[in-house]
Structures are given as structure tokens and as C-alpha cells.
């Protein structure tokens, strides 16, 4: 437990100091941390899922607070919570299924009743952890009911398994699901890259902005399939990740041209497709990306160039953005755009007025509204922005959307 606490603190401090950046890295670290939390947390013999959910949520809350802008952290926490709930759900269903089999379907009414009962129970459990006892009780009551009527051996067996084996089984299942999630995060770009040939044809001119590993793999995959195409890379000031991407792509044999961000509008009339990686995808289909992305999207819209976003599902955020330019943004150091050495005199607070005469705006993210996005290519296929809300329903449970549930306490 101490060990886990230490790990949590380490990641929290890393996030807070922005030592870890990039949605993929943070997602992986978060998932790994949560895995160790799940494996090492002490669970009470009864009501394990609720306890586990609480533990994960506690850790998740800390992580999210450490860097609220890094939406991938919250996404992964929610995904893990969802996994736990799913496992829990399937456990209870298994139990019920077992009964149903044992009943043999001779009494339809009872089975119906049973389902009803179960769904009510599951729902109540999902909604309110405090009512979790209800969940525990209701299957029990059902079992008692069934045992009373059928007297099955399997029920006997289950009961003997219950306290230890079942908890171990549950935890094992959750951990393996989290492992799958980590695996997904690590390999999603490969899955996406396989879709490249479906979208890139010969002699195409593609523009990309900033640096994204997914985009890089996507383009390289198309190149490996003997598609030859031109590539413009906007440098993406003030991080200049475009330089790095261009260097890597040129090394892989792609015909790459680096342009300044200001030249995007000039060049986009000769571009067939814009492919970008993003920081996060919001529930409305809007996109949070590196600063300057909105400009590229607007230019693409002006020239009717498809604006394609490649993204792993871990970037899918179940929140709807409200004023994302401010609320989901953070300002970086002015020194990145204006050298302190040259402008130190201007940045001083003026005597008397108490307000600095010179402000420097250096935001790190940009919000692209869904109407400017033509297509999402994810590791589970291509989707239109308006469908994003549905994908979110697949990956997150509605009870986890708000992680910070205990501000009152």
C-alpha cells in the first residue's frame, strides 16, 4: 500500500511539473499505475467492486487534479472504472445465468422476474456505491429463493468459492482487462496505420501539423505500401515538433517539405488532405490539438480540403467542452516566444500602474469545433464527428463522467 502511494505521488508530481506530456505517455503511465493500485489495494471480503471503484477513483482524482488539462488521464481512470463495473456486472450476470441454467427455464415468469431483479440491482449498484449492499443482498435473496426452490449443487459450489476465490478471480479479470487497455494504448497506432492505404492514394499531397506518432506511423504505412505522395509539414511553433517529424519522415523516404505555420493558408490550396494527430477528442466531436490547429482547420474548410484526425480511443474524452479555448487550455512560458534577454525591460511591472505593459500569450492548445473535422480515423474504424458520443457510451459508464464526487466531504 505504501508502495502504491509512493507510485501515485511520483506520477502526480510528474504530471504537475509537466514532466510527462503527450496523451499516449500519460495514458500508459496512468493505466499502469491504476493496475498496480488494483492489484495491491486491500479489499474487504464483501462488496469488493465498490471498494475497488472507490480506491481507483481516489487515485484518479489526485492524478486529474495534478494536470486537469491532460484529458487522457481522466479518460484512462474512467476506462478502468468502467472495466471494474463491467467485470462486476458480468460476475453478477454469471451468477444469475448459473441460476437460470439450473432452473432450466421451466418457470418463465421467475426468470423474467429474475432479470428484472438483476437489472434493478445492477443499476442501483452502478448509481450509488452506498447502496451497494443492496446489490449484494438482492442476488443473495434471489439465491436463497432459488436454493429454496431448486436445491442445486452448483449453488453450493459457488457459495464455497465466494469469499476468496471469487475476489481473486474478480481482481484477475480486472487486471487482465487493464492489461488489454495498456496493450491497446501501445499498439493503437499500428492498427490505425493499417487503415492508411484506404485513405491515401498515389500522388497525393498531404499536410500535417505538429508531431504525432500516430500520424507518422500512418504516413509511413502508406509509404510502405508503395504509395508515393508529397508531404507538407507545418512546423508548429512554439514547440517546433514539425521539424522533428519532418526529419523522421524524410529519413523514412517520404518527400517532405517544411513550411512555416503562417504559410499554411498559402499552401493548402494545393493540398489534397490534412491529416493531424490531436491531444483529445471531445464528446461532441470537437478536437483539442496543438495550438494553431484551428487555423489549419479553417484554411482546410475554406479550400474544401478534408481535415482528417487520426486518434487512438484513449484520447476519446466523455466530456462536452464548454469554452474550451480557456477552460481546457494552459499557458506556457513567454520565453518560448519572446526571449527574456531581449524583452526583460518591457516585461517589468510599470511603476505606479502596477500592470505590466506587455503581455505574452502562449497557449498550448487549440480547440477545433466538430464542424471543421471531416473524419476521425480511430483504431476501431473511421467515424464522423457526430458519432463520437456513441463511441463514448461504449467505453465509459455514465456514472464515472464526474470523477470528483466528494467535494462536499
Amino acid at each position: 500500500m505504501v508502495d502504491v502511494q509512493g507510485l501515485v505521488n511520483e506520477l502526480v508530481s510528474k504530471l504537475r511539473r509537466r514532466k510527462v506530456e503527450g496523451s499516449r505517455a500519460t495514458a500508459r503511465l496512468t493505466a499502469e499505475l491504476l493496475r498496480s493500485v488494483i492489484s495491491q489495494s486491500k479489499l474487504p471480503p464483501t462488496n469488493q467492486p465498490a471498494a475497488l471503484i472507490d480506491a481507483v477513483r481516489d487515485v484518479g482524482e489526485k492524478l486529474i487534479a495534478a494536470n486537469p488539462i491532460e484529458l487522457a488521464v481522466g479518460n484512462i481512470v474512467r476506462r478502468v472504472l468502467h472495466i471494474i463495473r463491467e467485470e462486476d456486472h458480468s460476475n453478477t450476470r454469471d451468477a444469475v445465468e448459473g441460476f437460470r441454467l439450473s432452473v432450466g427455464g421451466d418457470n418463465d415468469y421467475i426468470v423474467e422476474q429474475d432479470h428484472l431483479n438483476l437489472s434493478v440491482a445492477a443499476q442501483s449498484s452502478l448509481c450509488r456505491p452506498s447502496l451497494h449492499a443492496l446489490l449484494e443482498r438482492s442476488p443473495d435473496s434471489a439465491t436463497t429463493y432459488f436454493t429454496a426452490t431448486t436445491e442445486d449443487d452448483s449453488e453450493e459450489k459457488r457459495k464455497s468459492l465466494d469469499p476468496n476465490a471469487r475476489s481473486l478471480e474478480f481482481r484477475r479479470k480486472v487486471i487482465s482487462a487493464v492489461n488489454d487497455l495498456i496493450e491497446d494504448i501501445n499498439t493503437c497506432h499500428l492498427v490505425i496505420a493499417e487503415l492508411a492505404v484506404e485513405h491515401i492514394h498515389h500522388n497525393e499531397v498531404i499536410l500535417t501539423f505538429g508531431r504525432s506518432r500516430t500520424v507518422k506511423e500512418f504516413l509511413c504505412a502508406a509509404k510502405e505500401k508503395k504509395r508515393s505522395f508529397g508531404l507538407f509539414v507545418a512546423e508548429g511553433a512554439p514547440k517546433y515538433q514539425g521539424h522533428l517529424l519532418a526529419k523522421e519522415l524524410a529519413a523514412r523516404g517520404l518527400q517532405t517539405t517544411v513550411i512555416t505555420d503562417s504559410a499554411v493558408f498559402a499552401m493548402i490550396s494545393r493540398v489534397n488532405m490534412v491529416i493531424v494527430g490531436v491531444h483529445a477528442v471531445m464528446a461532441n466531436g470537437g478536437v483539442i490539438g496543438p495550438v494553431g490547429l484551428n487555423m489549419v482547420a479553417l484554411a482546410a474548410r475554406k479550400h474544401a480540403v478534408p481535415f482528417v484526425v487520426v486518434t487512438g480511443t484513449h484520447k476519446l474524452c466523455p466530456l462536452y467542452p464548454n469554452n474550451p479555448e480557456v477552460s481546457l487550455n494552459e499557458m506556457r512560458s513567454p520565453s518560448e516566444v519572446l526571449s527574456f534577454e531581449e524583452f526583460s525591460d518591457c516585461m517589468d511591472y510599470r511603476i505606479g500602474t502596477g500592470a505590466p505593459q506587455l503581455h505574452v500569450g502562449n497557449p498550448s492548445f487549440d480547440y477545433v469545433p466538430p464542424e471543421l473535422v471531416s473524419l476521425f480515423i480511430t483504431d476501431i474504424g473511421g467515424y464522423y464527428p457526430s458519432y463520437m458520443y456513441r463511441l463514448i457510451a461504449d467505453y465509459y459508464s455514465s456514472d464515472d463522467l464526474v470523477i470528483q464526487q466528494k467535494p462536499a466531504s
Partner: protein
Amino acid sequence: MEARRASRTVSDPKVRHVGFFTPDPNPQPGWNPLASDPPVSNSLSPVIIPPPRQPADRTAAVPVPETGVRRQTGADQVPVGSYNPSESLLGSSPVPSSPSSRVGLAGGEFSEESNGWFRRSDSGKFASSLPDTMVERAPENSASAAPVLESKKSVEATGKGGKAVVEEQNEVQSSSKPLKAKTTKAERRALQEAQRAAKASGKEGNKSAAVSQGAAPVKPVKQPSQKKDGPPVSVSVSVSVVSFDKKGGDRPPEKERKKDVPAPRMQFDDKSRVQKAKKHAVVKQTEARNRVELFRHLPQYEHGTQLPDLESKFFQLDPVHPAIYKVGLQYLAGDISGGNARCIAMLQAFKEAIEDYSTPQEKTLARDLTAKISSYVSFFIECRPLSIGMGNAIRFLKTRISDLPLTLSESEAKAALCSDIEHFINEKIILADKVIVRHAVTKIRDGDVLLAYGSSCVVEMILLYAHEMGKQFRVVVVDSRPKLEGQALLRRLVAKGLSCTYSHINALSYIMHEVTKVFLGAASVLSNGTVYSRVGTASVAMVANAFHVPVLICCEAYKFHERVQLDSICFNELGDPDAIAKVSGRTDVNYLNNWANKENLQLLNLMYDATPSDYISMIVTDYGMIPPTSVPVIVREYRRDHVFI
């Protein structure tokens, strides 16, 4: 020659109809300024296109000393005044004639009046040929000019009553609106007839003009009043006269139109032409290694290699004048940048070169000097491609050289050319900037947040002037790589006490929320309304448009061009690609250090881009504030204007 002028007078009313700026059919907005309170008149009608001027008047109105006077007034009178005096000086001359011709033409009177038109324009010539009459007339003019102007004012003020005054002066009886239309038609017919007659009479038109001179006393009055001050009058007048002669010659209009179409630009993917050009080149350019395919039609050279070579050649280069050479090197090194600065430097170098010029034996000045200027221009182009404003200035200068009368002595011709150049610089650039500033400042309100992109000197003047006026506003300076010109602007603004926000072009969408107006400079405005400007301007305008923020383009009219362009690729300028690889002040960004060795990697440093006209709310120019759709009007009017300065 009569033909030209006549056609112009006919076209004049048309122009005025197009002029959506002046709802008042009264064709003299030009002298509102003369009235006592210029700022008021300006604020009332900020968009002013002065009436098309009569070329002869203009030429006459521009002797050397006057430019000095004008400059002075520009300096003293801070508000709109600087604009107006020049306007009035230029615009006053056609004025007396037009109301009289409009108002006072009934019945048979018109023929005489229409003669007056020609006469007036010819009066310069007359004056030059008969200087003594001029001298005689001068005092009378100065006396009579004022009353005429007075009457003008009263026309403005009292309408018909004022007109009556004019009528009285002209000793013409009838003036009523229904008649007016008729008379103008009749006038036109009369003009046509007269012009036919003039053609028939051929070159002796001179004489006939001189004869008719005596007929109408009011019109020629203005003309000499312009000329009376200053000794070099005779030179400038004679220049103007002859130039007018030439212009007015029997050139068929189609030919002229054809000539107006700009020559196709050098395409650098045309190998034979490039080879040919290389033979003559002074600057030895080496081709860049990793060229961008898309821009093969533009010169892509290694940067930074030519300068030492050229410097060493400084004393060996006979054909190039040292002043030209110096400016060329400054272009090459990037010491002079910005459309206006480059244009002024070029013109001043030309002036110096012309001052030191002497016509070789058995050659004519006009031809030899034109050839010389052409060679200088090609040298400049080798150093750095010309901006469109510079092209216009060169065109102006060449026109002036070719229009020099053969009778002129060499020193006189040189003096005339130098004064023309001075005049161009003063009026078309310096004064125009001031006028733009006055116009644009009316659009700044307290509490505004203004966005400026890059470093445009006009925009800077606007901001500083508004600050001096005590307006409370904030400035957002948006900058872009690789030049980071905004930092220099930022420093100057902060030094003057403006409160500024600085950000990169990528942060536009973030910063645009708070911006209320966008002020942008331009390298050129093309006649389809496209604004050709520093790369990134289009992005700024686009984002502003997306956020429903008005975009104001500030551009002097000498940078307008009749060319059209749809994208930023067909015509552009490429900067040094190495500038992209290096990020100033960021040692951690060094991914592209040896980019030239990687065969698949190109760096593209685009210098300009074309902003589509639908992003532009307004273009502020020295002729007023116009929508981008009206650029062709300015181009048409202005071209005539600057040819005849």
C-alpha cells in the same frame, strides 16, 4: 490630342456615378477640405474619392517648390489638413470649369464652354510659349482665384443660390436641373464635333488653342495661379505640356490597352530564358539544392553567398551607379525591408543616378536614360525581386522619362525628373501614409483591442497616432516565424507607452476572442480585391473573419495593381530556407541542422500570400476607405492619375 481629352471629359460623369463614395452629384468633394474645418468634413464623409482631375492641371500643378510647400503643410497640420491642402492644390483647378460647364450651358453657349475645356488644358502650353502673358496674368489670378473658391464654398453651402453666383461670374443665364442633363448631352456632342475638328486641323491645334485663350476669362485663371510661385515653373510646365502632347497623340485606344497589360513575369522553369538572363546577370546566384517542386517557376537560390562576391566587385562595376549598387546590396542583405522603405530607397538611388547622369554623344537622353534605368532595375531584381509598388514607381519614372520633351536641355530634364521623383515619394508614399492614418484613426474607439500582424509601417503610424490622440486601446501584436518582425514593432510600441499583447500566429484563435479590429498592411492590392501581403496575413484575416472581427487593410494607392491572382503560388517570393531550420533564441530546437544533406527534405520559406477579398471588410487607402470590390476603380483612376502626375 483633343481626342484623348474629349473622351475623358465624356467619361467623367460615368466615373462619378461609379463613385459610390460621393452620393452628392456635385463633383467637387475635393474642396471640402479647403473649407475652414477639415476634420469635420472628413468625419462626415470619410470615404472620399477626389474627382478625376484634368491631366494638364495636374501636371501644371506640380512644380518643385510646391511639393515643398505641400510637405510643409502636411507636417504642420496634423489632422486631415495634410491631406486636404494637397487635394485642394490638385483639385482646385478643374473645379471652376466644371460647374460652369455643367451649370451654365444652355442653347448655343455650350460650344464656347466646351472650347473652354480644351483651352484650359492647353493653357499650360500657351503659357510656356508665351511666358510674358503668363506673368501679366499672375497677379490677376491670385486676385480672382479666391473669389472663385469663395463661390465654390457657397455652392456647397447654399446650393442653388451659390450656383447662381457662379452663373453670374460666368455671365450665363440659365441653370436648372432638367436642363442640365440635356446640356451635358449637348456638351458631349459638341465635344465630339470639336474633337473631330481638332483632328482635322492637326498639329496646328496649338495655335487655335492660343487663339481661343482669350475667350473665356474664368477658366484659365486657375491654371496660372498654380504656376505663379517658384522659378522652375517654366521647366515643369514645359514638361507637362509636352508630356500631354505625347499622351494626347493619335494613339488608338486598343493599342494602349494592350500596352497596359503587364508583361508576363519571368518564369524560372523556362530554361532557355533563365540561361539568357544569367549571361547578363551581375549577381551570381547559385541554385539551391533542395528545391521545392511546386515553386520551380520562382527563383530558388542559395542565400548569403552573393554578398561578399558583390562587395568585392564594387569598384569594377562600371555600368551600375554606386548609389544603385549600395541600395542593391542593402536589399540583398535584408537591411532595407518593407515595401515603402524599399521603394523610397530605390527612387532616391535613381534620383542620385539621374543627377550624375550625362547623356553620351550621339544618343538621346530619353532613350539612353530609360535603358540605364532598365539595367538598374534588372540589377535590383537580381538582388531581390521587386515589390509591386516598386514596379509601379518604375513605371511612373519611365513614363516621365519618355515624356520628356526633346527641346529640353539635359540639365533641365534632369531637374524635372528629380523633382518628379521627389514628388512621387512625397505625395504617393509619405503623404499617402498620413492620409491613411487620418482615415484609419477614425475607426479606432476607446476600449478597442486592435490586432496588428507583422510589422507594417502604416499600421504602426496609425497605432501611434491614435495613442497620441489619447484614445484608450490595447494592441495585440501577432508575429510569425521566421522573420519575427512583430518583435521590432512590439518594442517600438511599448517604448511609446502602448499596452501590448504579443503572441505567435498559432495562438490566433485564442487571442482573437478579445480582439475588436484587425489592422493589416499590404504589399499590394490586386484588382480582384486580393490582398498580397506578408505571409500569414491571409491566416490572420481568415481567423478574424471566422470570429466576426472586421479586417482593415491599410495600403497606399501606389501599391495597387491591375494584376489578378487567385492563390499564393503562381506568383510569390521565396526567402532563405535556412531561416526556417534555425529557431532564434531556442537552442533546443535543432532538428534540422543538416537539412540540405537529406535528399527528401525541403524547406520552404514563402514570403507573401494572397488574402481572398471576402475576408476583408475594408481597404483604407489614400483615396478613402473602400470595399475590396472597388479596387479596380481605384486602379483605373489612379493609373491615369499617376501617369500624368
